């Protein structure tokens, strides 16, 4: 298994707490993600999974705790620097650049790479233009790989839901992440699409070697492709371990039986 021989965790979440007024979205949450592994993150609605993603990408500020990535204190890094460190994400409710073409959406995934200066842009400096050309070549590769070629020159806004999800995935891959945060990638997909997605994620992981933190309600998918699973409820970690261990964990069973129908 990739990552089995890596000792240092890639992502270390330690004692993280987030409060919104009276609501405590996360409390004393701790877990690790190792390099190259797919780590499932499950929990009923409102468990705090998206909130955790927003802490890692520096949209929310935890009240307590620390988040370290590759040994670096993430909470000291501004939001726009996160991508450059090698963390890319997809959004639960899709956050594409609607008026931009699919290709441009994917290309924007490399915004952290150098060469976005305004002056080089204004003057079309050859250096900047060359770098853009190289990045475009990579963007085209990802577009082809995720079967987006037919829609590459259309604006993202009007595309079918499943297609837009693949655009987001391609955009995230464009950043060459070492950690990919996936917030319900199977949400809204058909049954067949979900199966294909599982195979695709594993294949992409094997090819690019990233670690993935996979938030998903689709149990078949998480349990099928995760190396490890962390379960949450009410902002707390209630279980962690192999998919089989977590599936049988009494606390997890209770959390799901107790709430979700």
């Amino acid at each position, binding site marked *: 298994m990739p990552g089995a021989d890596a000792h240092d965790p890639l992502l270390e979440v330690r004692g993280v707490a987030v409060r919104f007024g009276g609501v405590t979205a996360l409390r004393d949450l701790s877990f690790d993600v190792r390099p190259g592994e797919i780590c499932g993150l499950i929990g009923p609605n409102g468990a705090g999974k998206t909130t955790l993603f927003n802490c890692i990408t520096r949209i929310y500020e935890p009240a307590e705790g620390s988040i370290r990535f590759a040994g670096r204190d993430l909470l000291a890094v501004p939001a726009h620097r996160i991508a450059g460190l090698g963390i890319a994400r997809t959004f639960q409710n899709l956050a594409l*650049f609607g008026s931009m073409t699919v290709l441009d959406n994917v290309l*924007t995934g490399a915004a952290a790479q150098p060469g976005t200066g*305004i002056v080089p842009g204004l003057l079309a400096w050859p250096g900047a233009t060359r770098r853009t050309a190289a990045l475009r070549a990579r963007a085209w590769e990802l577009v082809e790989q995720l079967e987006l*070629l037919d829609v590459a020159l259309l604006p993202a806004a009007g595309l079918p839901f499943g297609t837009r999800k693949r655009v987001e995935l391609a955009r995230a891959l464009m950043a060459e992440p070492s950690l990919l945060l996936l917030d319900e990638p199977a949400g809204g997909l058909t049954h067949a699409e979900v199966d294909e997605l599982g195979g695709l994620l594993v294949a992409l992981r094997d090819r690019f070697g990233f670690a993935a933190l996979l938030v998903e309600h689709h149990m078949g998918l998480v349990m099928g492709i995760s190396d490890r699973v962390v379960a949450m409820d009410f902002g707390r970690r209630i279980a962690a371990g192999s998919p089989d261990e977590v599936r049988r964990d009494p606390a997890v069973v209770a959390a799901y039986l107790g709430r979700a129908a």
Partner: protein
Amino acid sequence: MTAVADRPTTTPAPRGRPVAPGRVLVRGSAAHRGLQVAGLLLVVALLVWASTWPLFRMGQLTNVFVLAIAIAGLNLVTGYTGLLSIGHSAFFGLGAYTTGVLVVQYGFDAMLTVPVAIGFCFVAGLLVGLPSLRIHGLYLALVTLAVGVAFPELVRRFDDLTGGAAGLVIRARLLTPPEWTGISRAQRGIWLFWVSAIALVLVLLLVRNLTRSRAGLAMRAVRDHELAAAAQGVHVARVKILTFGLSAAITGLAGALFAMYVGALAPDGSFTLLKSIELVTGLVLGGAATLLGPVVGAVAVVFLPYLTSLVAPGPVSGIAFGVLLIALVFLMPEGVVGRAQIALRRVVTVVDADHPALARTARDPGGPPEPDGQQPGPPPSTDEDQPR
């Protein structure tokens, strides 16, 4: 098309698959270059022809060019980056007064004041852009509106420099064209016509470069989804502030040229909120986030009032103009150029040469991709520029 691929390696698309509906024009190809050169020659020919018109007509065109530059500046911040500014009259005014004051009070050569005006307006734009880091949408528009309201007051306040409410007259002697042009002082309209035409072409070239660069991509990403832009690594604050500065600098350049064009500045003349509204109107009519929208918009705001006053004389003309504006915005929310691009794309799509289907066809002697118009889906993006 919604199926998710599970093939990890590159899948070659079926051969001959269409790149786009309709005909395809490859950017940088001989045909594309040819069209660009033809377009450029046409523009030069039109300008040369226009320079034989009576001075009054040329003056009108100069006014259009100056306004087009100002709107092109606004387009960067409002069109491409999505930050509505109703304060650009202040940058227009700052540019104009920089030129006016430096020429009249300090004896500068008029042309040498232009870079100074650009520099001042750039810095002013950075400052006005600061609030955009914290506040959004209409609230930001309100802040820029306050800047627009404040500018004429400032001019009145510093009246020993600006001449205050009485105005500032730049005497024709100070605006004499350089000797090498051989243009007499009385004919200085010709000189300004060419200066503004060349300035406009240069501004459009720079804007075109910028909007096609990755910096331009970042601007549009900020406009479409600020949070997602930051998650991709776009430095949202830097993009907003620098765009504001650049936008103000370009509108300030227009102001400097305007000062030479009118030769007399007054705070209540062309630097009130009405000017801002004129710029926004021109941008919307011509087409926000399009390269040539500002030019069409400038033509519209200069000439439409003439047209409506011909059709409906007297006070009715203002009403006719208003009705026409509303009708145009209803019929073409994307603006004239935006609409034209959508229509044009049904006929021909400009595709970059790095499109994989093209690269494959180039390797494969199967001929160019066949248009077959079977592509479903929404109208193409209004954001990409067509060749000129």
